[in-house]
């Protein structure tokens, strides 16, 4: 019940294109959904996060879409750039439970010129 399923495992996008990564969760008690970006040899860096009271949140080129009824959320990267090439992790947390995060298995994104 604590799983977060992430897809695809890897993704290749042309420069300027839209990258879309999807996640699904099972525990309806989750109330915090962050996305992290990780470069090789570095720790994950928070990109953007959403709570279930909104269906969409946008920060620059990054947008989270959230579908509470389907228990799904996704990350859209607009105008993808080679510098966006990294591994992206979705996660889900329970604010009242110390906010420990349950992570998806990650998506390796490569943006080609």
């Amino acid at each position, binding site marked *: 019940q604590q799983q977060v399923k992430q897809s695809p495992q890897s993704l290749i996008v042309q420069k300027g294109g839209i990258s879309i990564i999807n996640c699904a969760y099972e525990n309806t008690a989750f109330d915090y959904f962050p996305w992290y970006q990780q470069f090789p040899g570095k*720790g994950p860096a928070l990109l953007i996060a959403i709570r279930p009271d909104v269906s969409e949140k946008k920060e620059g080129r990054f947008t989270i879409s959230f579908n509470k009824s389907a228990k799904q959320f996704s990350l859209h990267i607009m105008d993808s750039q080679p510098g966006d090439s990294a591994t992206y*992790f979705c996660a889900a947390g329970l*604010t009242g439970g110390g*906010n*420990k995060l349950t992570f998806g298995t990650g998506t390796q994104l490569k943006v080609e010129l």
Partner: protein
Amino acid sequence: GAGVSQSPSNKVTEKGKDVELRCDPISGHTALYWYRQSLGQGLEFLIYFQGNSAPDKSGLPSDRFSAERTGGSVSTLTIQRTQQEDSAVYLCASSLFAQGQPQHFGDGTRLSIL
């Protein structure tokens, strides 16, 4: 410091030895989390601290793993009698509080058990 600091950045040790991993959180952050990232996998929660107490230790894989936090700041994760399956990157994160605040990660300690 400006960010979460972890040391050592790399640790190679022989099976059966004990290791200590250190995390220095962002100043003023009361919550501290330990996660483990195995090769090609997502992050797995181990334990979190609010202040010096650990309300949730449910992710510690066995009694060989322990952690403590002193002075509401630095935390140490100790692995006793290391096994090859303990090889992973151990990541520490901190947040202002443990109620929905963003977690900021260090760059981790890469642990290799020979």
